[in-house]
């Protein structure tokens, strides 16, 4: 047997798990049809066997907003920067829901898909990316609801001022997706070893929400503690989102910079960890 053409014409080469940066992102593009099929599956499977169907996407933020308005505005009387409380809470809830569902639904990638991952190869990142995209559809529906209420309040003369920051909204959306995906795949990489984290996540998300200015405005936080909030990448996203549509808030550009840097960092670490774990997790799960 000759070895002259040993390194030519091989479609793929399987090697041992070598470096930390053994990442193949170009492969994801080749599997884009699979991503779309998974998006469809996730979206359809979400509301199948429910009576109200896709209506649930609207009911969730609506009820949350009503409850927040009653509890935090009427009962606890937390100020909302002079904005209509209903819009104030709804803007926060809609944006937060997208981030939180991206994170929680991607955080169990390895465990819930162990069955299919153990049978066949495809780039594992396909699954969390599909989750992020299918949640984008849910977000679009909920965002539409928010816009409808925004129009209603605007036309009835409420004190809101949509402004030029609206141009940043698509970027904020990408950032939320990146942050949710980054956190989710980071957690899923760690839960193949430690299942503990999966339990912690449930109330972790809850706590994180209260650490983010969703039920209260950032302006209510004393100046000496503002930096703590700046460390939370979601603070800048929520405040900017709210400022763009409602025209009131206390966001500073440097906080947005910190948030963006942390997002990129978390996503990068997440991808590195995920790519490392995906090669051998079937042996440990």
């Amino acid at each position, binding site marked *: *047997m000759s070895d002259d053409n040993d390194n030519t014409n091989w479609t793929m080469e*399987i090697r041992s798990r070598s470096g930390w940066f053994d990442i193949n992102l170009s492969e994801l593009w080749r599997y884009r*049809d699979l991503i779309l099929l998974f998006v469809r*599956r996730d979206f359809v*499977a979400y509301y199948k066997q429910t009576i109200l169907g896709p209506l649930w996407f609207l009911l969730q933020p609506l009820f949350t907003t009503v409850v927040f308005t009653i509890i935090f505005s009427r009962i606890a009387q937390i100020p909302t920067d002079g904005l209509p409380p209903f819009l104030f809470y709804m803007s926060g809830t809609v944006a937060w829901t997208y981030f939180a569902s991206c994170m929680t639904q991607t955080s169990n990638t390895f465990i819930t898909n162990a069955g299919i991952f153990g049978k066949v*190869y495809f780039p594992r990142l396909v699954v969390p990316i599909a989750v992020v995209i299918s949640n984008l559809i849910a977000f679009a529906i909920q965002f539409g609801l928010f816009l409808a209420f925004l129009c209603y309040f605007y036309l009835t003369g409420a004190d809101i001022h949509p402004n030029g920051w609206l141009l940043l909204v698509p970027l904020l959306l990408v950032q939320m997706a990146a942050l949710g995906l980054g956190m989710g795949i980071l957690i899923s990489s760690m839960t193949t070893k430690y*299942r503990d984290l999966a339990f912690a996540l449930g109330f972790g998300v809850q706590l994180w929400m209260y650490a983010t200015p969703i039920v209260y405005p950032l302006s209510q936080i004393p100046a000496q503690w503002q930096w703590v909030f700046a460390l939370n990448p979601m603070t800048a996203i929520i405040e900017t989102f709210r400022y763009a549509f409602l025209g009131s808030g206390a966001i500073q550009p440097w906080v947005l910079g910190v948030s963006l840097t942390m997002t990129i960092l978390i996503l990068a670490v997440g991808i590195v960890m995920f790519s490392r774990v995906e090669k051998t997790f*079937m042996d440990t799960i």
Partner: protein
Amino acid sequence: MSDVVIRVENLSKEYRLGTISHGTLKHDLQSGWAKFRGTEDPNARIGAVNREQLNNTNDRFCALKDVSFDVRQGEIVGIIGRTGKSTLLKIISRVTAPTSGTIKIRGRVASLLEVGTGFHPELTGRENVSLNGAILRIWGMMKEWITQDLISMKSHNIQ
């Protein structure tokens, strides 16, 4: 030779038994702390003197050791033996990575799934078929005849 479609070279796969992790963060931290202080690992198995011994070869399981072979185009190959058969197939189909060695492949690998793996009960037959086709990267070539088959099935009222 150019008609070799799968070349396996010095392939090994080793499993470490029981020492990868205790499964919970608490036990891992305990063991790590004990190792750091040089004291006895509270989670070590009875009889094991220390963690180094746990990591010795007798706690490793070699499913594949230095396996090399070629498969040529058109050949039908069966694998028999005591251990490592499915491990080898798992490595070829990239479900898990080898410990050392390489596999070079020309063409496409499609592992035969058990019926229903990856099927979603809420999706229609057609959707499930296209999903599985996309996973196996064979959707392109089966698209036509499967679509036709499904249409003829429909016309016979078989759901």
